């Protein structure tokens, strides 16, 4: 009897695992093969006249000269500045996303009541307008005689600030603005799922509402925070258009994405562009591993 049940459940597991196939197919097609293609380009060559990539599909033919040049520049040369700047911009933007996104997600998930639907709709609303349109709108708002300067002028602050000629904070603000909705949504879903009885228990046991938040809600929302951070910082690391639009191409705010764009799209040195992509990926991979290890650990703790 038990044996039959076990066999049945095993075959059922097999049926369910079929559901993973599209995902696995997607992963192989659009991740593994793509990454391999990037490697083949990075370690390949380029057509001398048309400057198009000639990928080296056979790993035995891989040529690592460009990659070693790039690595030299990243660790000791001019690219170090670009990588440090990129990490700083993304780090600051992440802090901004948490500062703005957490309270909003918290309110929407736990306090909004009947207004919840409306609030969620409002959060999705910016996606109805293309990202580039929104960035172009910012360039208008941030002009020397634009609305932003007029607005801060009302508070007696100097209203002749320049925003668009290579200011790092403009880029950070742009990144926060562009990505904060992506941050709020996953966080919202985690916060909403927190069992209210935990919070009640905290309060019953004498904790103040702030203490309850700190010791119950916040720890329980860590998985959501992590997921939201991953979802926002990964695209931010590759972002180049926010920067191009908001600084008129100032050399002071160049990010890694801009260098990749230059080598791949503007001039034909595909090996160099692809090598930069791989270096950035390797760095992000370290962050991803950290994320996965913590999530697995948390899962285990929860199962216990």
């Amino acid at each position, binding site marked *: 009897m038990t044996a039959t049940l076990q066999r049945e459940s095993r075959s059922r597991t097999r049926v369910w695992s079929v559901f993973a196939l599209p995902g696995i197919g997607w992963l192989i097609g659009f991740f593994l093969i793509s990454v391999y293609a990037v490697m083949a380009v990075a370690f390949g060559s380029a057509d001398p006249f*048309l400057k198009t990539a000639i990928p080296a599909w056979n790993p035995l033919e891989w040529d690592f000269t460009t990659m070693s040049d790039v690595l030299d520049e990243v660790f000791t040369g001019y690219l170090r*500045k670009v990588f440090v700047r990129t990490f700083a911009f993304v780090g600051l933007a992440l802090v901004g996303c948490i500062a703005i996104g957490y309270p909003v997600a918290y309110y929407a998930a736990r306090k909004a009541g009947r207004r919840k639907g409306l609030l969620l709709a409002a959060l999705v609303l910016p996606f109805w307008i293309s990202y580039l349109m929104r960035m172009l709108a910012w360039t208008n708002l941030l002009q020397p005689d634009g609305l932003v300067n007029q607005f801060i002028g009302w508070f007696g602050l100097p209203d002749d600030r320049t925003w668009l000629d290579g200011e790092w904070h403009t880029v950070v603000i742009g990144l926060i603005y562009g990505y904060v909705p992506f941050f709020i949504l996953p966080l919202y879903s985690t916060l909403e799922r927190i069992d209210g009885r935990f919070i009640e228990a905290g309060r019953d046991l004498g904790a103040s509402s702030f203490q309850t938040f700190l010791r119950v809600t916040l720890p329980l929302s860590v998985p959501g925070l992590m997921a939201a951070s991953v979802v926002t910082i990964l695209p931010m690391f590759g972002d180049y258009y926010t920067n191009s639009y908001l600084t*008129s191409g100032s*050399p002071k705010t160049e990010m890694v994405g801009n260098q990749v764009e230059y080598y791949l799209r503007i001039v034909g*040195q595909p090996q160099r562009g692809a090598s930069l992509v791989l270096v950035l990926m390797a760095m992000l991979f370290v962050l991803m591993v950290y994320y996965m290890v913590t999530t697995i650990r948390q899962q285990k703790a929860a199962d216990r």
Partner: protein
Amino acid sequence: MSASRRDFLARSTQLGVLLGAGVPLLQACGGDDKKTSSGKDPIADGLSPEKGPLRIINYADYVNLEVIADFEAEYGVKVEISTIDTDTEATTKLASGAIKADVHHSMAGTSIGNLIAGGLIQPLNRSYIPNFANVISTFNDPWYDPGARYSVPYTFFGTGIGFRTDRIDRALVDEQGWDTIWNATDFKGEVSVLDDEREAFTMAMLRRGVTDINTTDQAIIDQALADVSELIDLVNVKVNIEAYKDIPEGTTTVAQTWSADLIAGAAGYLPEGVSDEVLGFWHPPAGEYVVTNDSMGVLAAAESPVLAHLYLNYLLDNEVAEKNFSWVGYLPAIAKLDADYVIAAGYVPEHLRNCVPTADEISKALFLKPLGAEGDAKYEDAWARFTAGG
């Protein structure tokens, strides 16, 4: 030395032409049965045009859509335009087959040799293009395409300084020349240079009196990099190709830019109530003046090559060229549309007369030539350093 360098480059371009005629280079692109145009001849005389559609590859807003509509009506065909952002993007997409087209509307001079060598464009049959007679004679035998066998010129323009006459004295710009950019410390954040490694570094070289602008001497390039990088702290330089609107709108005061940008700026980008008198242009004297032109060509893989020839001919018609110019703002290389004509017709204000390179200036002009993958890479890598923050 500089003369021999230039000779060498001219010869290497010609070599490219020969290669295009004999050696199929396209296996190198990874494809096996690509449209190899090795030994491709021009199309025969007297063929009737295909039914279309005519597929064009071009930058956005770089042709008057009314002209396109007129062509469609005249020949009873549909025209489809694919837009590209950069010259490299056009080459890459045409080479990979990502874009299929009949007409390349705007080939850079630096690319034409490569497009020929790569077998991407076909030689033209001039019998379909009688309007070639309208072209400024200096373009009959351009450096990038000896004998103009593969291309007809589209637009041309020179590189100089665009500035606001209400903020900076015209006489001062004339006196300082290229130093104006380095001395514009009163206009921090309102100074820009062209987002193009060759153009920007050439400016720095000319400022130091180096006229061999196609040099691949690393020391000269490094000096140019150092000079241009100074601009980051001196004037908080911006790097873009948007002076055509930024100078009229006033967010840029001094810019290294193309002459055509001032013409376009005067025509369409001045805020209400601002006179075109605020726009000024300076360029170096003939002999140090870099003149660039874009060209049109027919792709080797064209499915409507006859129609494509007719389109090239159409754009070289005096009246069509004028109509196109009136909207695009970039001067066509048409002899009739000289400075006197375009000023009298009201397209260009008199005080921007120097935005129209004269025949003399074109014949003495410096040209940015392709330097081969290695030579180009020297400029590109230096540029990546500059845009990274110097």
